[in-house]
């Protein structure tokens, strides 16, 4: 979308134009949903979280100052929504963290504290076709911190600097997570260079 067209769309959203919001939903939902689904691993949760992202967008639209970075803004909201959700519920996505696997850095963002007793488990999340693919399964095996960086970089196209700001960790840590995560992903896929 052209920058001017996007700016007009946002201006209409600021006036409460429902159709402008619908257009944003159509534009950004596939990438946001892809990010959320692969981050939390459950389609139902990803749907709920996607709705929450747009609700927060509506609530914050009055304060939003458009600088051409709506994508980064939306993914920032999405990341915060996931973080808030898993902090509140004391549930975490069922993926392992770097610290659990003896990763090099453990100062990164944790999405929650413990696995809930009523966690539906892996079988419940295999409904979505793509997730059952080899790549989806390989992504799930990555430590949570590495997967988050890789997914943010891939879907939001944010710079590593912006990702570091969002996750509140040094750029070097973010780069290392992306490098190690992608390397591990290729190994898991049996597609090493």
């Amino acid at each position, binding site marked *: 979308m052209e920058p001017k067209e996007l700016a007009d769309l946002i201006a209409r959203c600021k006036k*409460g134009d429902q159709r402008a*919001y*619908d257009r944003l*939903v159509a534009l950004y939902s596939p990438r946001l949903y892809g990010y959320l689904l692969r981050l939390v691993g459950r389609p139902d949760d990803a749907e709920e979280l*996607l709705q929450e992202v747009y609700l927060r967008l509506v609530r914050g639209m009055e304060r939003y100052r458009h600088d051409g970075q709506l994508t980064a803004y939306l993914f920032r909201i999405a990341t915060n929504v996931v973080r808030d959700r898993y902090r509140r519920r004391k549930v975490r996505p069922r993926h392992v963290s770097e610290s659990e696997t003896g990763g090099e850095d453990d100062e990164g963002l944790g999405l929650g504290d413990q696995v809930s007793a009523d966690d539906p488990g892996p079988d419940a999340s295999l409904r979505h076709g793509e997730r059952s693919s080899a790549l989806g399964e390989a992504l799930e095996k990555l430590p949570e911190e590495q997967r988050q960086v890789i997914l943010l970089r*891939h879907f939001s196209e944010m710079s590593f600097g912006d990702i570091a700001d969002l996750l509140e960790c040094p750029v070097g840590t973010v*780069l290392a997570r992306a490098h190690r995560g992608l390397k591990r992903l290729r190994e898991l896929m049996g597609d090493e260079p």
Partner: protein
Amino acid sequence: MSPERDNLNENERELLGAQSADELVRDQRWLAGRLESADLPEGLEARVSGAIAGELARERRGAWARRLAVAGLAAAMLLLAATVWMVVHQPATPTDQPIATEPPKSVVVARRDDVDRLVNDYVQTIDQDVVAMSDELAVLQDEMSGGDAPWRDLLDVK
């Protein structure tokens, strides 16, 4: 991810090291060819749109409620200001009047009448006394002019 976004800047290359930076760029491109956006579940867009419509309606109601609250507050302030103004500027009530330095006119009139009457009485009394004294003085003059005036006996102590 677009190819130009795959590239790292100088600072990032320095942080990661040249070899790792090249590997990262290569692996990002590898992933870009395989990981696509997820298909949205049936009806998800409509549900999101409905949720947004509900939120917009809620915000509109909230905006009206805020306007009403502001208007109500302004009206209350005006009422309060008007009340204060009226209290400050209202005419003084009888109990608020300063203590009178003069008695009411009717009282003054009554007292003046009394004084006049008293003065007249006093003057009349004095007049009567003066008349009586004049009479006595005349009697005394007559007696003094006589040979055997009684006052001589009174003076003649020896």
